[in-house]
C-alpha cells in the first residue's frame, strides 16, 4: 500500500526474474539490439531510430518489442556481461528474443536483469521519467516509484 499518497506501483508478469533500480527510458520505436545498438557500449546506433545516440546502460527500458534478427539475444547477453545493458526491461508484448538473452546471461554469469510484461492498463500507470524499482520473481512482478521528491 502507498504511504501518504506519494508512491505508486503497477503490476505485470515476470518473463525474467530479478530486481533493479534505474531511471525510466521509454523507447519511441522498437529496437533491434543486433545492428541497432553498440555491442560494447550499449548505445543506440541505428541511425533510423529516433533515439539514436542514447545510452541504455543502467536505465529501465520501456519498449513494445525488439525487432529483427535473433542474434539480438546474443548481443543483449554480451551487453549484460559487459555491464552496459539496461538495468531492467519492461515489455508490452511477449518478446522471446530479448528474454532469451537475459536468461542466458543469468545462467552463465548469475547476473539477473529483470524483464516484465505489462498490459496496456498497467503501462499507462507508469510515469514517463524518473527512478523506478523493479522486482520480479516467479509469483509477482512490480514496478514502483516515489513521487515525493
Amino acid at each position, binding site marked *: 500500500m502507498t504511504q501518504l499518497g506519494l508512491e505508486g506501483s503497477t503490476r505485470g508478469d515476470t518473463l525474467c526474474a530479478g530486481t533493479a533500480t534505474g531511471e525510466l527510458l521509454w523507447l519511441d520505436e522498437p529496437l533491434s539490439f543486433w545492428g541497432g545498438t553498440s555491442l560494447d557500449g550499449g548505445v543506440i546506433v541505428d541511425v533510423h531510430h529516433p533515439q539514436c545516440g542514447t545510452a541504455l546502460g543502467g536505465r529501465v527500458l520501456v519498449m513494445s518489442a525488439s525487432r529483427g534478427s*535473433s542474434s539480438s539475444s546474443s548481443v543483449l547477453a554480451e551487453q549484460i556481461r559487459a555491464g552496459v545493458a539496461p538495468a531492467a526491461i519492461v515489455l508490452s508484448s511477449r518478446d522471446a528474443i530479448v528474454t532469451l538473452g537475459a536468461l542466458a546471461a543469468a545462467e552463465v554469469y548469475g547476473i539477473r536483469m529483470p524483464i516484465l510484461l505489462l498490459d496496456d492498463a498497467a503501462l499507462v500507470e507508469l510515469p514517463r521519467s524518473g527512478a523506478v524499482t523493479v522486482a520480479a520473481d516467479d509469483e509477482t512482478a512490480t514496478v514502483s516509484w516515489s513521487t515525493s521528491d
Partner: protein
Amino acid sequence: MTGALVLTDADERKLAGDEGAGMAMAMRMIVALAKVSGAPHLIDISSAHIDGCLYHGQAGLDFVEKLVSLGAEVSVPTTLNVSSLDLLHPGLVRLAPAESSAATRLMDAYVALKARATWTCAPYQLAASRPARGSDIAWAESNAIVFANSVLGARTDRYGDFADVCAAITGRAPFAGLHLEANRVPTVELDCSSVPRHVLDSDAVWAVLGCVVGDTVGERVPILTGVDAGVVDEDRLKALGAAAASSGGVALFHVAGSTPEAVEAGAGWPAPGVARISITTEMLRQARDRLTTAVASSGIDAVSLGTPHFSLAEFEKLARVLADRVPFDPSCTVWISTSRDVLALAKEKGYAQLCEEVGARLVVDTCTYVTPILGDEVRTAMTTSGKWAWYAPANLGIDVVFGTMEECVDSARAGRVVRHDAAWA
C-alpha cells in the same frame, strides 16, 4: 496470464538434473521460452539446426562452453549453420587473430556437443538432414526455417540464439507458433497471374519476388497463386524464402499447386475472405532496381554467388554457362559460397574444377557477407542473391548490383556491369 505450462514426468526429471547439469540448464531455458510463448506443453522434435556457431561476442561462447563443461550433448540429429571461418581454406577469411581464435573455440564447442560439422545455412540440401513432411523440428537461421516450413512441410517456429542449442540438447520445444496447424493457414493471397510465365522462368526473378513478398506481408503467412507449377523448383523457392525472410520476416509461405501443404489444401486455400493483393511485373522491376545501390555504368570488383549456399543443381547450371571456358576478367573475383558436402559432390561431377579453371574462388563453412573475405579494394559487387543484396551494403560497406546468373557471369568476364533486359520484360 495464460494457462499454466504442463510438463511431463520426463521433462521434470530433466529439469531436476537427473540427466546431468547440462541437460538441466538447457531445460530451464526451454521451459522459460515456453512460458514466454504461452505454450501449454512441450513437444518432441526430430532434428535441430543451430545458428549460434557464428561468433557474436564472448557471451555466446561462454554459454555453449558452459553447456559442454556440464556434460551436455545433443539428443536429436543436429546440423550447424555457417561459422565465421572457412576451415578447408585457411587464410581465406581475414579475421584478427583474437577473433579468429574465439571463432574456432566456438566451432569446437558445438562439435563437442556432438552436433554435425555441416557449417551450412542450407542443411536442407544434405540428403541425411531433410526433415519429413509434418515432423516437428527446431531450426534456426531464417532461410532454413522458411525452407523447412514451406518447401518440405516440416514444422518449426522461429528459433534463434540459445533456444536452438537448448532444443537440440533437450529434444523438446514449446508447442507454440508454427508448430500449431492453425497458424500455418495462409492469411493473405498474392496473385501472380499477371506476371508472364517466361518472366517467372528465371532464377533471379524469384529472389526479387521474395523481396516483394516480404515487403508486402511482413510476418504473415502468404499463399502465392497464379504460378505455373512447371516454373517452380527448390532453388527458386530457396531464393524466394531467403529474400522474404530478410525483407519481411516471413517464416512460412505457400505456392498454390506446388508446395506440399498448398497441394493438400487444394481449392480450400485461400479461404474465402482472405485479403488478395496483385503482384505485377512492374513491382518486380522496381524491387530489382531497389536491390541495386551502384550506378549502372560502374565497373565491378567482385561477384558473389551461393547465398544461401550453392546447391548441386546450381553448380550444374553455372557449369553450363561456363562451358565455353572464357575466363573472368582479372579485375573481378567471383566467389561461390557452398557447404563442404555439396562441394564434394560438385568435385565428383567436375563442376567445381571448371569454376576454378575460369577464375572463380570457392568458399565453404561460412559465407561472404558474415565475415571478412572480399578484399578491401572491393567497392562494387554483383550478386544473384536477394538476401546478399539486402545485407551487403550495411554489413560490408560496398555497393551492390543485383542480376541474373548470366548477367553476373558476363559482367565478371567484362569487368563491368552487363545487362540482359529481356529477362525482365
